[in-house]
């Protein structure tokens, strides 16, 4: 009888301890659901930091954040971003531990959009297309591109009904030449 009593007490005690542990673990896993979301956001931020943020959609996704999500879920290769060039590919390779399946043939030059004011008809269709709001203007007013804010994404070219937007390569400035001879 006493043996049975001892066994039952031990069993109940173990069950109680396991129940308490289970409660504690349950608390922990509820918190980790939130932190999992935060971890995902953090990883997406790290991936996005490797991208040039031109929001040009040349990768096939409507912006840099969707491309970052696709990279995180391994749906797409790391070599799909032309404006990022070799820098983006090598950073993504180091961050994600993946190889590029193709290397870029040439690095695209830095370029900005320029509106030919003689041909601009003031239709304002290019304004909403710009992801950085770099085009200044309004309906029936002259439009112009703020060169410093333009990323050269080419999204304004398609909406223009009179084709008055050109992409102009930026001249290399002294700060981009490299090798300060006394460094």
């Amino acid at each position, binding site marked *: 009888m006493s043996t049975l009593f001892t066994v039952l007490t031990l069993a109940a005690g173990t069950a109680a301890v396991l129940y308490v542990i289970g409660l504690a673990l349950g608390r922990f896993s509820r918190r980790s659901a939130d932190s999992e979301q935060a971890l995902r956001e953090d990883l997406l931020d790290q991936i996005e930091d490797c991208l040039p*943020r031109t929001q040009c959609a040349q990768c096939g996704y409507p912006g840099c954040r969707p491309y970052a999500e696709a990279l995180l879920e391994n749906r797409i290769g790391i070599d799909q971003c032309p404006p990022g060039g070799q*820098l983006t590919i090598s950073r993504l390779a180091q961050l994600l531990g993946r190889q590029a399946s193709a290397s870029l043939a040439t690095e695209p030059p830095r370029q900005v959009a320029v509106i030919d004011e003689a*041909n601009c008809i003031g239709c304002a269709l290019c304004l909403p297309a710009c992801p950085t709001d770099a085009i200044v203007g309004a309906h029936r007013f002259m439009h112009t591109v703020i060169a410093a804010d333009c*990323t050269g994404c080419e999204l304004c070219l398609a909406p223009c009904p009179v084709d008055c937007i050109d992409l102009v390569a930026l001249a290399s400035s002294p*700060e981009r*030449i490299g*090798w300060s001879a006394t460094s």
Partner: protein
Amino acid sequence: MNTLPRIQGGLALKRHKPGLNTPVVNLSRPRTLVFPLIGYGGTALQPRVRVGQTLNCGELLADGIAASASGRVSAVEARPYAHPSGTWMPSVVLECQPCVTANTCESSSKPSALNLDLLRDAGLTGHGGAGFSTAAKLARHAAPSQCQGLIINAAECEPGIACDEALLMHFADEVIAGIDALIDWLQPQQTLIAIEADKHEAIKCLHDAIANKQYIRLQRLQPIYPSGAERPLVDLLLRLEGQPRLRRDETPLDRNRICLNLATAHAAGRIARGHAITHRLITIYGDRPCHARVAFGTAIETVLADTGNSPRAGDRVRVGGALSGYDLADISAPVTAQTNALSVHTAPSVQPSRPCIRCGDCISVCPVGLQPQQLYAYARSADDKGLDRQGLDHCLACGCCDIVCPSEIALTASFRHARSRRHADRLSDRDAQLANTLHDRHQARLEREQTRPTRQTRPTTPSEPIAADGIAAALERARARRKS
């Protein structure tokens, strides 16, 4: 000589100081002077002058660049620039009266005590080769009498550069006058001139010039390259005083030491006496080695031709010393305040490099205590974290590791390339950050406009009614453009 103090690392190179046995050649000033609008570290400078403006000698063309003659600005445009890339740079072109005896500037003001404004207005930059703004360097200096030590850097360690030695041999009194002017202003607790012990003539001239001045001390050093580099030199002098060494994150000013090149101190003296800084001594090594006094803005090919050192077909012209210099693509590039030596030589043969054998010789000669072996591996794999850990930014690019490497690896070139690449990457990051901020604002605006409808704008009343054929004409123009 082996008992004299020496920097850590470095190499004892054979003494090669050409052009010291001939008198200084005063070159005539040409009609056209060109001033590249490039500052310290390759930053672009904004011109302060317009085309057509007339200037007096000594007036500033941009921050740190003074006109070396009176004249008229004939253009502000891209011109050849002395740089390894051979790229043309925006420059101010000054037309002036050619002058055969261009020893002194036409205009001068009355002498005055040195101060920051005076140095800024004179556009004084370092004459050692890097060209940091002297006013900016001294602006960080706390206050007069807080300066523990004024160090005049006369080491000039690199083979092929002897302009500071020539300055001492011919103009020692002027140099000391410049140092005195600096001492009057900065009131350092001690002043010393650091010089390599094998410059016997120059040391003799210095001794004579400071004979009665007990407050200026001469510190002779073992002739080791690169003793003239600021950081190894200041580290050595701190060690000699029993002070803790110069840490990597410290500058000499953090230890209340001011280190100036000898020629910069000489120029400061001329500014105190009311002169503008228009010329400098340059070592010329070719058929007729000599030292020439050259006006800033003179084309390098003119300097070589006027001193009888014109290059022949197949020759290369090098700017700077044997190790830290580079060959010029276009010798019509102008002389600047940072041009210290020119040499004409035949194109060297390049030896193919072999794999690294991990001998460690490069580590023992590095004057900054880096590990070139490791830096090379990280540079080749573009591993930025590794490069930071190994201290790539502290590399002086002195070239000592190249000399000792038994596999003849172009170590310094790979470090320079890595630094250029990282610099370009940082600029790309800056652009990406800006685009990111703009895009975030764009998204925020769209969200705002969803919750709150945009205000209706008043319909504009055009000055004349827009005819239907006006729109048709615009579309026609567009179609014609699309076809062309």
